[in-house]
């Protein structure tokens, strides 16, 4: 029987590996996700067969309950809500690990059974990391869902508290290993839950995708340490795979923003505090335009580059943008999309939205490929993007976002910026692009503004 379970786990681990491998290539990603879910199915079935189904009632109840909620959440959410949903799921995985760890250790601790130090240590890790993952993910969810808004007034205090709580969790973990009493386990859980909150609370919303990837890595590690406690090879392997891949993803994202992980976790608020005096930059230099002005400008253009940003997602303007593209192409113009790797609030955010609007993949150009050719672009239309086209990042070494690679929209012959106001993007810094001579601002909601341009084009 045990051999059968182990064999099933091996098959499942292989499916996870193949799944991850395929998920990381565009052509095979769908298949990769299928392989991963097949692996999970194999694992669950094998486990059900292999364990004495003493708690089968609980299991069935839990699976039905969780499965229903999972399906509802996954099918109902809008594409713009993806980031927070992933955060939420991730939190659930974290607390599940915490609960499994506690449920495994608790009976023995309560009855005073002597436990191996390694079991206690990995149990403590499971509980600590699971707890941080849980509350950290919930805070990330709340921030992205805009349940938690407004500035955090005391970031420094929160960070100090966070360091204290992490240290306390570590101390409680050591106590749990040494003294082996269930009280330490519960205290550890509480301290780590609080640590998760204080870790994520001071981090700016723009950095949430990085935080989610990091917490994803944590939830993998928590699953893996659960495997140590239970002596379960599949938990160890699958958890470690996710732990490693989450960390790699985190670092890839940091690199795309030209920042270190430490800076993301502990430096974001300072950056926001630093840039506030937009007035001086904008004063008297901003040219406001109407949709008709923009349409006339477009009429004479041969090459148009569209730069979407977070605002396009908020306005749900992707379908309007597609219609604009078709209209321009109908007039024989060349239209390309310039996609910044961290445009939006989630890596690949723009790709998902534009794909939803059926814009062909070939039309989307990555930053490195489009940047050298902005000189040949007649009109660059910036829709709800801000930080990713901020020339200060490139030119001003003192800017809080200095060094972040940007799209060189300012080098296009004319720039049209569509947004509702002059208010800053998520990094909170003013954008000199808006004050350039060759820039015209079209103020308004992204979707409405694009639709107006389409009408104006048709009326020319």
């Amino acid at each position, binding site marked *: 029987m045990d051999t059968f379970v182990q064999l099933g786990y091996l098959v499942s681990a292989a499916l996870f590996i193949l799944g991850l491998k395929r998920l990381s290539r565009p052509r095979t990603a769908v298949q990769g996700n299928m392989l*991963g879910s097949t692996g999970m199915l194999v694992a669950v079935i094998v486990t059900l067969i292999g364990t004495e189904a003493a708690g089968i009632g609980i299991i069935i109840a839990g699976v039905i309950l969780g499965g229903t909620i999972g399906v509802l959440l996954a099918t109902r959410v809008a594409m713009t809500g993806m980031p927070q949903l992933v955060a939420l799921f991730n939190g659930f995985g974290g607390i599940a690990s915490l609960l499994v760890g506690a449920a495994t250790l608790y009976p023995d601790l309560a009855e005073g059974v002597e436990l191996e130090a390694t079991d206690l240590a990995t149990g403590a890790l499971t509980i600590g990391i699971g707890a941080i993952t849980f509350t950290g993910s919930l805070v990330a969810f709340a921030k992205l869902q805009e349940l938690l808004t407004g500035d955090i007034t005391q970031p420094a205090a929160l960070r100090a508290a966070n360091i204290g709580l992490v240290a306390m969790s570590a101390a409680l973990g050591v106590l749990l290993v040494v003294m082996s009493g269930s009280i330490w386990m519960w205290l550890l859980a509480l301290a780590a839950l609080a640590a998760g909150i204080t870790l994520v609370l001071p981090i700016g919303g723009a950095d949430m995708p990085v935080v989610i990837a990091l917490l994803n890595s944590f939830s993998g590690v928590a699953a893996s340490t659960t495997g140590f406690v239970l002596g379960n090879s599949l938990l160890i392997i699958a958890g470690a795979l996710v732990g490693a891949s989450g960390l790699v993803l985190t670092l890839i994202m940091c690199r795309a923003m030209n920042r270190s992980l430490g800076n993301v976790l502990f430096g974001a608020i300072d950056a926001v505090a630093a840039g506030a005096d937009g007035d001086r930059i904008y004063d008297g230099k901003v040219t406001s335009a109407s949709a008709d002005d923009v349409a006339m400008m477009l009429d004479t253009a041969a090459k148009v580059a569209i730069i979407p940003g977070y605002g396009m997602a908020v306005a749900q303007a992707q379908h309007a943008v597609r219609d604009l593209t078709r209209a321009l192409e109908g007039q024989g113009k060349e239209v390309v999309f310039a996609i910044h790797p961290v445009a939006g609030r989630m890596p690949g955010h723009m790709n998902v939205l534009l794909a939803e609007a059926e814009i062909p993949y070939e039309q989307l150009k990555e930053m490195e490929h489009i940047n050298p050719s902005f000189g040949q672009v007649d009109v660059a239309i910036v829709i709800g993007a801000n930080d990713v086209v901020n020339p200060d990042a490139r030119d001003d070494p003192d800017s809080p976002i200095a060094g972040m690679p940007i799209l060189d929209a300012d080098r296009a012959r004319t720039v049209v910026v569509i947004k509702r106001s002059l208010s800053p993007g998520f990094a909170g810094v003013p954008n000199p692009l808006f004050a350039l001579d060759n820039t015209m601002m079209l103020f308004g909601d992204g979707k409405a503004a694009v639709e107006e341009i389409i009408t104006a084009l048709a009326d020319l």
Partner: protein
Amino acid sequence: MTFLIALTLFVLAVFLGVELITKVPPTLHTPLMSGSNAISGITLIGAIATAGTDYSWLTNILVLGAVALATINVVGGFLVTHRMLGMFNRKR
């Protein structure tokens, strides 16, 4: 399984995870994140294995919660990834 064999499995899987993920294009970051997030719901089998090992009400509640929450993670995670990837793929 001794602790050190478990650790060996862990280390091998970490190396493998790193190799598998380096050099993913940014386009795929979001689906990759949610797909691997679903895999981290593997803790579900830990929850299942733990059910029925003890009959105290406290552990039963812990286990029920663990199974349900892990199932949300697994089912929701794979489904949402599939939806996202579907949007990409219509285009090819």
